[in-house]
């Protein structure tokens, strides 16, 4: 009993440590600009104000940016769920020549930082005429090496016998994939969906480079305008950060069960 209490005390301390910055940010978004910068800093606002939120939504096309972010993130999630699991299935269950070499190449891509390929990728997108379009922003994120890796590992653990049995019964590969394999992948798909959504929702540099007019900006790109060389407007920036983070918190609350499950599964070997 006492041991249990100690565990909870330790966990509670950890929670406070982790939650404190979020709490401070949330409270700071209700403080006037001068109070945010005050030294020593305040925790609870002396003076509650909605001015930051009001300023945020009147100054930029925030609702447009919110819409753009949603479209981009959902498209990235849909693309990753479909394509990564397909590729993962092929790597895990279909024997073909050069499979390991190809899979190795996918893994190599995991190690190349996105910033290195940014300019060549932009030149490519520009030559397709996709600059300043949704497609241009979404296309490079529609299938990711991390997603392929995740799905392949998960599908590899599904017993071969299931796949064989379906094949003996005369099912084609697509049917096996959609009716047998995919339903078993729910935890992995939830994890992949979450990761993709977070990455895309928080994505900054690529959308910032491809979107060339304000009506194509995603949330982080629109917020970056407030960060100036000399006079960063922290009030607006913090209010914006809260707006950006809220959907993620909500989604995580609903899907955390799958998220934890998914990571445990992929850890097993």
């Amino acid at each position: 009993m006492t041991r249990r209490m100690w565990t909870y005390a330790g966990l509670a301390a950890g929670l406070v440590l982790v939650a404190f910055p979020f709490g401070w940010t949330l409270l700071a978004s209700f403080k006037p600009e001068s109070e945010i910068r005050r030294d020593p800093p305040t925790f609870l606002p002396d003076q509650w104000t909605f001015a930051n939120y009001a300023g945020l939504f009147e100054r930029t096309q925030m609702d447009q940016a919110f819409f753009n972010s949603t479209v981009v993130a959902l498209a990235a999630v849909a693309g990753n769920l479909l394509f990564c699991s397909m590729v993962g299935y092929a790597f895990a269950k279909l024997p073909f020549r050069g499979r390991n070499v190809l899979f190795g190449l996918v893994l190599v891509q995991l190690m190349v930082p996105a910033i290195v390929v940014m300019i060549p990728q932009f030149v490519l997108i520009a030559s397709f005429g996709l600059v300043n379009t949704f497609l241009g922003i979404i296309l490079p994120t529609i299938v990711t090496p991390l997603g392929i890796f995740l799905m392949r590992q998960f599908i590899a653990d599904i017993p071969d016998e299931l796949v064989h049995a379906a094949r003996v019964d005369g099912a084609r590969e697509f049917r096996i994939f959609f009716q047998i394999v995919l339903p078993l992948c729910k935890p992995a798909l939830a994890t992949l969906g979450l990761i993709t959504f977070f990455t895309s929702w928080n994505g900054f540099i690529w959308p910032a480079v491809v979107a060339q007019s304000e009506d194509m900006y995603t949330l982080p790109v629109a917020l970056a305008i407030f960060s100036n060389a000399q006079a960063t407007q922290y009030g607006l920036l913090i209010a914006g950060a809260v707006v950006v983070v809220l959907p993620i918190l909500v989604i995580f609350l609903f899907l955390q069960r799958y998220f934890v499950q998914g990571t445990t599964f992929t850890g097993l070997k």
Partner: protein
Amino acid sequence: MKRFVIGVAAVGLLATACGRSAGGPAEEAKDVDVNKAAGEVTVWAMGAEGEALGAFAKEFEAANPGVTVKVTPLGWDVAHDKITAAIAGNATPDVSMLGSTWMGEMAKTGALEPTPGNLIDESVFFPGAWGTGEVAGTAYGVPWYVETRAFYYRTDLAEKAGVKPPATWEETTAFVKALKDKAGADLGVEQNFKQGSWQEVVPLVWQAGGDISAAGKWTFDTPEMVTALTHYASFFEDGLAATDQPTGAFPQTFVKGKVGAFYSGPWMIAGMEKEGGADFAGKFSVAPYPKGSAGGTSVIGGSNMVVFKSAKNREAAWKFLQWLTDPKVQASWFGKVAALPSVQAAWQEPALTADQRVGVFGDQLKDARSAPAVPTWEQVAKVMETEIEKLALGKQSAADTAKAMQAQAETIGTGA
């Protein structure tokens, strides 16, 4: 840091890839017939300027029926990457704002259009400002607004200590010492030794009679450089400037009177009034840079406006730039975002003569120079900052700092 190194590598690759066209004789500027100006001009601008320019440009649209200006605001964080990518992908806007220290690098890509002499008159600008856009003998774009650095101090503390703002290096030391010992400013003067610290040191080199580059070569290892670095470091050594303050403690330390003075640009006038509240406005003032043995030259910065060669609407683009650099327009733009005019005549306008502190910057601009407009400048500035930090923390002598800067700058080269 890792991301930064990779970023530099990527830009380096880009520079080599696009460098083929450069290196020949100076480019010829082509005249512009602004009577043909019509249609839409696309403009990129950063930060607060980007936010305000769209509405401001309505006046230009009203004066030029048939021309529309579409401004896309960008964050400073992404602007450099976005513009280099746009150049590489040949997907540029017609016009873009560029940080004045990027001019060398961007001009080298061959994507900028030389300034047409029939439209833009060099002599109306501050020479230092014009110099930011001159790369290898060719001028690109126009200086849009300028910044320079001067000496901020607490008037109330100076009065309490019985000292006048310093005019020379020696007086600066005495001044800060008096603020500290007699008026209770226990942190003395704020000297930046981290990001952007090259701006603290480069003016001192000029004031000592030296320079950081000459005839296409870096010249960091000189007696003048050592003099400048020694002067800069002396404040840290004598306990007149602190290195142990948490990031972001300044400017509140100045408001509270712990720091008595600092060097910075014009934006700090408004910044300090915001930081300290309405009654703080009367407690600080600005003086020109204290003079070294060779004068009181400051460093000029700011932003330029450029037209890309791939611009779809060249005539209207240049006409817009011509309008932006009209003295009246420049003065009214100052009223909007407090960006200092790059055009000298604009400084006669009432908007700029109202505040004496702004006037100090106007005088300082007549004696201000730009950082070298070479493609590798941003990299070399990073080297300076790293070495300056070691010096400020007392880990390296002034002479060794100068040597270390020279050695690394030579490896980077001037991109010529």
